């Protein structure tokens, strides 16, 4: 996309982007600390799809309390913090058909693959797991193809 603004506009755009990267890195470090805490204290891998998936398909009944507690924390803190720092908007597409299709694919895919961005991505790559690295490569490829088809070819979403 071409930036049609003048020099000043472009400069402020660059500045904005740099803050985004810094916030991304700081947020990332906090995510990594969350995973480290869960591993060293509870001896468990912090995978969002596995923690929720084990509850909904019953495979995680043995430690349901731990799973529910994790999810409670995951929901509660953003509820307070997101509005305070002006992040309480997901900018999700308004097309509910797309939302349903996407949700189904994410639920199915993560449970067939046994992990998502947190489990296979953060926790897998950080221990150089071949499965984590492979999964990450394929969900990025799938995501890239999806964006190309729906944004650029069909022009939807």
């Amino acid at each position, binding site marked *: 996309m071409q930036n049609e603004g003048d020099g000043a506009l472009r400069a402020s755009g660059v500045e904005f982007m740099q803050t985004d990267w810094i916030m991304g890195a700081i947020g990332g470090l906090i995510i990594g600390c969350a995973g480290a805490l869960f591993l060293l204290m509870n001896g468990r891998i912090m995978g969002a799809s596995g923690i929720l998936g084990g509850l909904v398909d019953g495979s995680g009944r043995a430690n349901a309390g731990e799973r529910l507690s994790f999810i409670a924390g995951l929901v509660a803190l953003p509820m307070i913090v*997101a509005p305070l720092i002006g*992040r309480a908007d*997901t900018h999700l597409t308004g097309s509910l058909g797309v939302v349903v299709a996407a*949700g189904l694919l994410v*639920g199915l895919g993560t449970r067939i693959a046994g992990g998502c961005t947190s489990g296979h991505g953060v926790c897998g*790559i950080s221990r150089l797991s071949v*499965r984590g690295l492979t999964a990450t490569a394929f969900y990025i490829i*799938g995501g890239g193809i999806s964006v190309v088809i729906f*944004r650029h070819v069909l022009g939807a979403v």
Partner: protein
Amino acid sequence: MRRNLFAAASGALFGLGLTISGMTDTTKVIGWLDVFGAWDPTLAFVMGGAILPMAVAWRFAARRERSVLGSAMPSKPGTHIGHDLILGSFLFGAGWGLAGLCPGPAMASITYGGIGGAVFLAAMIAGMVMAPPIRARIDKLSAA
């Protein structure tokens, strides 16, 4: 009880990190996947930032038999690359690119994500319920 407490603390930190990093904003995620559009590199910084403390944690974990609260540490990662891993990841990615939400941010943003966020989470849970028999089938076919 202490397990639940640390699980809640870990979930809260995870939610805080997702919120601060901007990963609950679908435009940033789709922007990262949109290599042919206005590419947004934020997600790479989030991933890099998250992998650092986690890599240190795995080093500590390798030296211990049990976690601080006494449970066994996760076993060594498997090396088998099955069709389930590849196909599942590809499907997950397709949905991720479509809406810009993955499971962590979908849960983290549920209180302010509106109807769309609730519909996404409901559909995701439906997909998770449907997955085990499909996964079993893929495993059976690829073993044959």
